[in-house]
């Protein structure tokens, strides 16, 4: 076949398809303005409710039981902290975007990020205009959910790797059933989530049962993290990243960390040069897979070195609205890691310096 055949055939597609994808239809900037206005109105209404009722309006502070959550003690402490904060100024709190899988560090799945407007750009507005896009948040119930305790893991062929996916047993099957996207490669049982380019989540369909699965690792002793960024999250360049939320980990309630956490607020990296530097560093890292705690040192045994001062959690918000869940960084050893023991290569002195200048600016 020649490219001209294809080109001419595209000129013969149905008029309905052409109209549906009209090039002169309303621009996304307009959609964005409408959405921003909606949020502003919503925020104003919420403020009025709080002022008039004098009651505590609790926004999204219910917590879920999460497989990857911290210990019950720290969970409770974090929930209390959020509720206290909310009672003080929840009129300013506006839900911004899907923040699934950000529960590993100090932000829970149902908490909302501060309303500084960063996340309102492109991403969510873009998604709103797409009927077939399914936000990952839609899969999960709010509130306490009982799930099976046995972890279910399956392998999926992804390029030259075998990837491990973990079943999200707290996902709602009815929603999954309505969210089946395109078939993953030639596999008859695995599907993308509708509207998603990336494969952080896949849907498994077998015997009339629909389940949602989240990427964990590649089954390999070591592999470039760049492969994960590209093959799983679809991140091939820094300019696909809208912002990175940086925040302290859930405090250790037994030490002096809680006080420190109060001093260190969440902030966002949005500067293009910083995002580029961060992307470059991540792209150079090697992942050693799961349960490699022996490779890392985050200073938790050193009581004289409060962990929160040397640690940060990072959530990556992509311009297409997707979220890459939490990575942790510890300055103690100059390493990124994940809660379940996934370890990454130690950063070079130069990369460590770059990262720490970005992440560890403590607001004194």
């Amino acid at each position, binding site marked *: 076949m020649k490219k001209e*055949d294809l080109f001419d055939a595209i000129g013969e*597609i*149905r008029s*309905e398809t*052409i109209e549906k994808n*009209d090039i002169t239809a309303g*621009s996304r900037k307009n959609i964005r303005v409408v959405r921003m206005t909606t949020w502003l109105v919503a925020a104003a209404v919420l403020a009025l409710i709080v002022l008039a009722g004098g009651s505590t309006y609790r926004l999204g502070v219910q917590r879920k039981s999460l497989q990857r959550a911290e210990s019950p003690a720290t969970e409770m402490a974090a929930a209390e902290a959020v509720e206290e904060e909310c009672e003080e100024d929840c009129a300013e709190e506006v839900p911004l975007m899907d923040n699934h899988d950000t529960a590993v560090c100090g932000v829970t799945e149902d908490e909302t990020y501060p309303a500084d407007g960063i996340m309102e750009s492109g991403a969510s507005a873009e998604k709103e205009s797409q009927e077939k896009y399914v936000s990952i948040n839609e899969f999960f119930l709010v509130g306490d959910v009982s799930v099976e305790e046995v972890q279910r893991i399956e392998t999926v062929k992804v390029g030259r790797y075998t990837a491990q996916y973990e079943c999200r047993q707290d996902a709602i099957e009815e929603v999954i059933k309505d969210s089946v996207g*395109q078939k993953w490669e030639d596999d008859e049982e695995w599907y993308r989530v509708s509207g998603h380019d990336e494969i952080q989540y896949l849907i498994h369909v077998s015997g009339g049962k629909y389940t949602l699965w989240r990427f964990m690792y590649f089954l390999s002793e070591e592999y470039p993290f760049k492969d994960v960024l590209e093959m799983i999250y679809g991140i091939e*360049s820094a300019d696909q990243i809208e912002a990175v939320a940086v925040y302290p980990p859930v405090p250790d309630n037994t030490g002096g960390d809680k006080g420190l956490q109060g001093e260190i607020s969440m902030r966002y990296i949005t500067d293009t040069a910083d995002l580029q530097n961060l992307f470059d560093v991540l792209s150079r890292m090697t992942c050693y897979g799961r349960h490699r705690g022996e490779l890392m040192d985050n200073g938790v045994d050193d009581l004289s070195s409060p962990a929160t001062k040397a640690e940060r959690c990072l959530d990556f918000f992509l*311009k297409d609205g997707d979220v890459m869940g939490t990575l942790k960084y510890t300055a103690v050893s100059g390493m990124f890691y994940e809660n379940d023991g996934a370890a990454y290569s130690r950063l070079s002195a130069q990369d460590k310096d770059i990262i720490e200048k970005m992440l560890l600016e403590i607001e004194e």
Partner: protein
Amino acid sequence: MQDNEIIELYWQRNESAIAETDRSYGKYCHRIAMNVLDNTEDADECVSDTWFRTWNSIPEDRPAHFRGYLAKITRHIAIDRWRSLTAAKRGSGNVTLALDELGECVSGSDSVESEYAAKELAASIDIFINRLSEKEQHLFVWRYFYMEPVQNIAERMQMSPNHTAVILSRIRNRLKRFLQEEGYEV
């Protein structure tokens, strides 16, 4: 004036149909022609030819989607003109770029596949498009039907040009696989 009213004028062979079509869709068709030809005069002529061809094809046709119907005619005429201009070393490089991108989906061999009727292939492409997410549909149709420059698409989608190009590349790969599954020798 509503589309069905304009079409009714064509059926009545009322020449005001052309003026009404131009009023409603002149800019739209001009934009399509400009994306292909990148020359105002050529695009103007192309739009005039579109009205002429529409006048001749209605009432034989009674398009349910008039806007898309006009878009197809405009694109067809503009591409024909572009081909003749390209032979004369004129014409927009935008089409060449879009064509080259589509070249990644096919072998380029001049075999029996080139005898596939465009409409049959178009029906397959339609199926493919409808399996895409809405965002991907927009990207694909804007780029390869309307031949909108990647930069413009990126701005409209609030994405970077690089990201837009990456997604388009993935869509092309999927199109190639889809066509193979459909039995085309790409």
